[in-house]
């Protein structure tokens, strides 16, 4: 290694150290706020356990929804050739840039009692605000774009020759999707799902405004953190740590190679 390379590597290392410190110091500070042995007691409070249940239940449903509908939709977006595709891609990403409170207002004006669709729904006796269905909608609305983006990118990166080869061998389009495209894009899908899950379970603003904060009905973990701040700071921190653990766990699991995959990943090329 010559001096210039060494200097360059030094600059890169410095940038990485600054990045890590900046991102991790607040999280470390949070973890240091509450003695670890007090955590179990703080997390056993009813307000926390009921919020945890609400969060897990609504997140589970929201995730099933965007995986089941989002995956085929992303496949079409990635491989379909149609006019206005760049515009559509942008529209799908729009909820990502909405401030959460604005997302809540948007959902209210769509599905709220006086909303665009809400008044029609009300005629059929469907009232969404202050229900768990509203939490699921809020979580799906803010989280799904994270998954869609990753899934579209994953499907777009597929080698079309491989898909064509399967077709030449007589595979139907559905079989190509299920047997070739899905397994090949699995890593991208898993990474996108993990991001979407983490964003969804941490959802705050849209839930608060659209679904409300009704104890043990629509009060999710992030809403509980906010409410607990006024009561008991330690309990709020404990709930935050729980949220961090759940999201961090999912992100980590998504990055590990799946247990069932036996094909060794190719070693990185040209590393230092």
């Amino acid at each position, binding site marked *: 290694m010559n001096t*210039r390379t060494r*200097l*360059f590597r030094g*600059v*890169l290392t*410095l*940038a990485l150290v600054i990045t890590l410190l900046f991102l991790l110091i607040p999280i470390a500070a949070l973890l240091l706020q509450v003695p670890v042995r007090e955590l179990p007691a703080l997390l056993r409070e009813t307000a926390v356990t009921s919020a945890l249940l609400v969060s897990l239940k609504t997140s589970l449903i929201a995730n099933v929804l965007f995986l089941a509908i989002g995956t085929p939709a992303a496949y079409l977006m990635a491989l379909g050739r149609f006019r206005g595709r760049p515009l559509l891609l942008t529209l799908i990403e729009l909820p990502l840039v909405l401030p959460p*409170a604005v997302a809540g*207002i948007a959902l*209210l*004006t769509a599905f*709220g*009692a*006086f*909303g665009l669709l*809400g008044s029609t729904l009300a005629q059929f006796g469907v*009232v969404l*605000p*202050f229900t768990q269905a509203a939490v699921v909608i809020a979580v799906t609305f803010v989280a799904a774009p994270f998954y869609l983006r990753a899934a579209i990118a994953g499907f777009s990166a597929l080698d079309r020759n491989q898909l064509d080869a399967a077709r030449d061998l007589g595979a139907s389009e559905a079989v190509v999707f299920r047997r070739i495209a899905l397994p090949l894009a699995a890593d991208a899908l898993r990474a996108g799902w993990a991001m979407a899950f983490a964003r969804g379970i941490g959802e705050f603003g849209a839930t*608060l*405004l*659209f679904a*409300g*904060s*009704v*104890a043990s*009905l*629509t009060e999710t973990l992030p809403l509980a953190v*906010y*409410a607990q*701040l*006024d*009561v008991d700071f330690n309990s709020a921190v404990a709930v935050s740590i729980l949220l961090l653990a759940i999201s961090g766990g999912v992100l980590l699991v998504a990055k590990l190679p799946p247990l069932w995959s036996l094909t060794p990943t190719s070693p990185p090329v040209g590393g230092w």
Partner: protein
Amino acid sequence: MIRASLALLATSIALCSALAPSAYATTVYAASSLTKFVPTIAPGNTYSFSGSDTLAFQIENGAPADVFLSAAPLYAERLHKKGLCTTPVVFALNTLTFVTPISNPAGITRVQQLDRPGGYRLAVGGKHVPLGIYTRTLLGKLGLGRALQKNTVSSYQKASDLTSVIALGSAVAGFVYTTDWHANRSRLLPIPVPKSAQPLIRYMACAVIRPGADTTSARAVIARLLSLSGRQALANAHLGLPPKT
């Protein structure tokens, strides 16, 4: 490449230092119900509006505030006890208004309707924030202490969240500060509540004590609040006036 990276690094550091607050602006931390009022009485200053509890929490953690205007005595007095601000003075009063969305979808005409089982979707201040505490006092005085168990109640820590939730029809009714009702009159319908049930809502001001605080300007802002023109501005903003001291 190396030079570019170093230049970028230097630029970011320079940008960060440019973002540090200038030493000369007086910073007013005020309860969000004062958002429209404060800039009229203390123009040219820096403001931060939020729930009084959040502001007090930030000041306790070293936020660069000079003046603290609290929607409840509790927070100003808490800071004073900790030696973080001067003796708080009452400068304004407020009341609660029981409101429904302007179209009143649930047909609520009397606050006593909340006592019926069956359940309205209500938006109410959280148990531990001033608005929620005042609301519970009011309901208690009306003998409606159990109203919050009989209805579907969503709790909000910020008064402004609550106002939009009712205005947009998520909740069919709720209790808001009278000033917030005035700010959203076109979207919120007031339902009369007996005056005798009104809780005493006092706003308190104090000058923040911290190294580098601009105490002189802070005291000047508070003096203006208590002055004749200050009282006129408070009245214009639909806030109540405390007896003159």
